[in-house]
């Protein structure tokens, strides 16, 4: 017995010396793939934008430098401030409307549909529009809202109005409408997810304590849905802040957003100016997300 044991342990030790790396090295190796992906596709581009934002440029070329001119021009211009305000206005309107619609859709799915299979079917129906591209869904509003579109021709045809309504298309209304259409699901999904996790006996306990349906909603369901609302808010706000195609198409070029401003700067080859703008936008959005996370604790949901 003794000899067998000792020869076995020797064997293990030999194998350990030849094969095994130290535990710390193995842990680092396991983290390498994700580090590489995030490094190359997230950190490096952001770093490059940050570096370029300090460069000099003219109509044809960029010159490595360290100037704060791009930031001064960006932050010193009233156009920038107006554009930021306009973008924030869109973000606020779209957030408020998607939150309202998203909560009620999720509430209906989670509490009024009895069977889980029916819930899944209806949820999948919500996602069906997402099988087509953003651009197509956006552009398909044009024949509906246009001067001679469905709504206007129906209203003039039935004699409700004599002149077509002008503000339906190429207006802030159209931009907000299209964005709500595009982004509501990003609000529905996280809220639905949170609502599904609410223990149904909490609702019964509230009823047992004499709560009316409205009181159950405001005292139990809404507070418990906050993390889902926060995650949905982060999705919607960041998407709207970075949106340029919807604004361009639906406003017919009459309104601007920060991302659209950057796109225009890039088409004029003013990369450093666009980069400075991007850094400012990134800082603003990160501050908004940090603000949301300060108000609502979403750790349970992750």
């Amino acid at each position, binding site marked *: 017995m003794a000899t067998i044991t000792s020869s076995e342990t020797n064997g293990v030790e030999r194998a350990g010396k030849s094969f095994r790396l130290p535990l710390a090295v193995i842990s680092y190796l396991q983290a390498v793939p994700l580090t590489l992906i995030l490094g190359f596709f997230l950190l490096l581009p952001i770093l490059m934008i940050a570096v370029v934002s300090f460069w000099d440029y003219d109509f044809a070329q960029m010159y490595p430098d360290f100037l704060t001119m791009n930031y001064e021009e960006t932050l010193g211009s009233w156009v920038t401030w107006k554009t930021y305000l306009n973008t924030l206005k869109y973000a606020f309107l779209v957030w408020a409307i998607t939150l309202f619609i998203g909560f009620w859709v999720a509430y209906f799915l989670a509490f009024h549909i009895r069977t889980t299979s029916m819930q899944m079917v209806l949820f999948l129906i919500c996602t069906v529009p997402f099988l087509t591209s953003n651009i197509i869904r956006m552009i398909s509003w044009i024949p509906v809202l246009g001067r001679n579109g469905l709504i206007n021709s129906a209203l003039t045809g039935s004699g409700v109005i004599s002149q077509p309504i002008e503000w339906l298309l190429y207006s802030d209304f159209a931009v907000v409408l299209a964005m709500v259409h595009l982004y509501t699901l990003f609000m529905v999904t996280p809220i639905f997810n949170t609502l599904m996790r609410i223990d149904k006996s909490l609702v*019964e*306990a509230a009823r047992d304590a*004499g709560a009316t349906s409205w009181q159950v909603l405001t*005292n139990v369901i809404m507070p418990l849905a906050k993390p889902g609302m926060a995650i949905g808010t982060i999705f919607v706000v960041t998407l709207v802040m970075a949106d340029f195609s919807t604004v361009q198409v639906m406003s017919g070029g009459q309104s601007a957003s920060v991302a659209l401003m950057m796109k225009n700067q890039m088409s004029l080859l003013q990369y450093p100016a666009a980069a400075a703008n991007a850094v400012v936008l990134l800082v603003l959005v990160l501050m908004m997300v940090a603000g949301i996370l300060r108000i609502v604790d979403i750790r349970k949901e992750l």
Partner: protein
Amino acid sequence: MSKAAEIDIVSVSKIYGATTAVHEISLKIPAGTYCCLLGPSGCGKTSTLRMIAGHETISIGDIRLGNAVVTDLAPAKRGTAMMFQSYALFPHLDLVDNVAFSLKMKGVDKDERRAKALDMLRLMQLEAYANRRPAQLSGGQQQRVALARALITDPEALLLDEPLSALDPFLKIRMRAELKKLQTSLGITFVHVTHSQEEAMALADIIVIMNDGRIEQAAHPRTVFERPATAFVAKFMGDHNVVSGRVTQSSDDGLMISVPAGGDFLATPTGTSALSETADIAIRTDRVRVGAPTEKGLGFTGLVSNVEYRGASVKLTVNGAGVEDFTVILSDKEFFANPVKVGDAIPLSWERADALVLGRLKH
């Protein structure tokens, strides 16, 4: 603290689509008693409790609480309070707000309801944790919060849905004693759903044993233990051997049954049991002795198939005379005076008074 109410359940049924969960049960729970609804899972005990609470609609029948028919009333209007199996504490509220919840719903102003909730927490010895969230408490503490939340509504009856099932065995026994003490001091009616015989025996003034949506027996624990009404009760409580057979001879002082391909067994009729072709008899496991019977039908000889040592007692399992798994509980003194092994053939006997004829439910 509050007046207790009698609960009267009058031919109540609960029907879910094609299945009947509760089948026309009638039950009267006197005011101020501790009643345990006992049965295997799926027997309808929880449905019954939820119908009393108002969380389940009553398909047919009526429930009266005190002097009011509460069949169609909302849960909070019935004067009952329910304690849920998982306690259902609000995770986003601290203990004070959890306990004060029903007062908030009634529109009591903040200072008053917080003061009342703190009093209730003090009663449950939880005031030190008043500002914690439920997730920061142990199972036993959560249960006390749930009790405090239920009792702050000053109910006439407290309904408890398997309140001890989430606790570890040691805590279970401690909380059991606390529940009984609480019920005695409050004097209100408690209805407690459980699947543990031991829990029901320890707590209840009335045990209601349910099976398959019907009440098999509703009686004081001692009656349930000594005179089980049906074969199901005798088997479920586990203190009796149930032997079924064809009736061969019947008189006022004795009923003889014959087990297919086995022996004859004599039993004392319990009065109400109607005569029929077959009958079930129950024999107390702890009254069986090793030794030859004094009278025909009060014993048999069988082979020991298992011996289980339990400290103060020894449990034997015996097969013979057409009876499978006949349980014998001997005191350790009796057993070790004359020990037996698996495979031994031993004679068993019992007194005439220890064999009862069981009734049958009319379905």
